[in-house]
């Protein structure tokens, strides 16, 4: 089989990234420019600032990636690009760059859904086996996706309100942790005890999630303790929150594995970096005798390696776009 090199570009939020991946499984080189320190001052990602940074970085990131890989664009088989979902102004920079490269070098342009990218980050770890269940957990998504084959996505359920990552960040802000607070909650939880009583989110027969009630409960609890002048134990609150949030994810995931005869459970998205979640997922895999794949930490946050990996399978299936390809701030995974 001929080797296929895909160059991926990702700019959907606050990371400008470029990567070259061989046959959808082997990372050759990746470069990432993170804007986290810039947005930290504003307590979250400011879209217009993110767009301004992307345009500054885009050619530098692509050049460094090619240099690292010791490759020329001429050696690339196709260019994969995150077309959405994400911040529209940010997405457009990567998109225009990818389209221009595709035009100049006459290379196929492969549109990749950002979430497909997070799912295919697992292809960089191990060959995916079907039927596969993907638990997608990030700042914008919380869903269970069933895959019977490559690029066959069936959403079993998703959050009815807040995404899990959003909820982590909110809880972090309430207890005074700096943006991005999600990872800090995870760290604090590892030294805390689940002493605070919090409501269990949406425990029903569906595959849906709901975290807004849990989020409000944490805000109210914090408020109540402050009014009483009681000192809050941040580690215990983090642990209490994380225990309830993760048990909700685990319960629904468990049910889906049992009902769909799943061979491979994968976790995708930024919250896959949570140690608390990773531990529970591995436990679940052992309990149900299911192969578990979780991306390495560096593939959990936004990166172009996952886009190039997803792009490989899309390219093999002939999912090619022309130069009219546009970015979409929201779009169904398909």
């Amino acid at each position, binding site marked *: 089989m001929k080797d296929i090199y895909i160059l991926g570009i990702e700019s959907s939020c606050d990371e400008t990234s470029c990567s070259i991946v061989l046959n959808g499984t082997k990372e050759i080189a990746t470069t990432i420019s993170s804007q986290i320190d810039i947005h930290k001052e504003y307590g979250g990602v400011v879209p217009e*600032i993110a767009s*301004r940074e992307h*345009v500054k970085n885009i*050619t530098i990131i*692509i050049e460094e990636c090619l240099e690292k890989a010791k490759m020329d664009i001429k050696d690339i088989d196709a260019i994969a690009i995150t077309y959405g979902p994400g911040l529209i*102004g940010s997405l*457009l920079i990567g998109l*225009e760059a990818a389209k221009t490269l595709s*035009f*100049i070098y006459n290379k196929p342009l492969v549109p990749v859904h950002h979430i497909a990218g997070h799912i295919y980050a697992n292809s960089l770890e191990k060959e995916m086996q079907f039927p596969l269940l993907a638990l997608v957990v990030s700042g914008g998504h919380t869903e269970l996706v069933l895959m019977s084959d490559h690029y066959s996505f069936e959403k079993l359920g998703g959050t009815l309100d807040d995404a899990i990552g959003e909820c982590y960040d909110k809880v972090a802000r309430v207890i005074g942790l700096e943006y991005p607070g999600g990872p800090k909650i995870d760290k604090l939880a590892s030294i805390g005890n689940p002493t605070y009583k919090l409501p269990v989110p949406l425990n029903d027969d569906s595959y849906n999630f709901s975290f807004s009630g849990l989020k409000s409960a944490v805000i109210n609890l914090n408020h109540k303790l402050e009014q009483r002048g009681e000192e809050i134990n941040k580690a215990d609150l983090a642990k209490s929150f994380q225990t309830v949030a993760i048990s909700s994810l685990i319960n629904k995931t468990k049910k889906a594995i049992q009902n769909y005869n799943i061979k491979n459970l994968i976790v995708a998205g930024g919250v896959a970096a949570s140690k608390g979640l990773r531990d529970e997922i591995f436990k679940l895999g052992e309990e149900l005798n299911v192969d578990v794949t979780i991306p390495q930490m560096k593939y959990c946050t936004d990166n172009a390696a996952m886009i190039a990996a997803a792009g490989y399978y899309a390219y093999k299936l002939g999912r090619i776009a022309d130069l009219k390809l546009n970015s979409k701030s929201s779009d169904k995974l398909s």
Partner: protein
Amino acid sequence: MITLYIDTSSSYLYAGIVKDSNLLVEVKADLGHNLSEMALPKISDMFEKAKLKACDINKIIVVNGPGSFTGIRVGLTIAKVFAWSLNIPITTITSLEAMAASVDDSRLLVPIIDARHGYVYAAIYDGDNVVLEPSYIKLEDVYKKISSECIFITNDSIELDYEKWDYTPNILTIVNKYADKKEIHAHKVNPEYLKLTAAEESKLNAS
């Protein structure tokens, strides 16, 4: 010498290919909300019409603002990737310079772009002299700086106290005028917004 010109600082795509002082092909199209989708296909069509390949280009002149933030970035990203990947010189000019260069008139030239809420992006040129550098400024303050007969150049429907010329670029004149302007490395080519983001402004006001 074959030069590619790109300006997407408004809802219009203005682009052209100039070979040795001849305009081979040009596009002047109001793409509205489809700018990001259609800019590159239109540029690609232009190459086809001129029977040229991307790698035939020797130089890029790109407008880097002021104007629509998103629009500027679309054209600038295309231009940067062109210049970087083909390793050819690139230079930037402002949208206001492009507007002034397109008018052959001995009066003061006042290119303006509506920036809303009573503000405009404007400059004032008296021949080769710059009376007002490209600025984000109140329209009434632009008026105060006008000392002799003038003509306003704009693409927007702004009410003006002065004679107005509806902007359409003379791409050949612009390219000729800026043919020898100092080039910049593609990595260093950046937009000239002339305006901070709203988040930066409120942070500045708070401090």
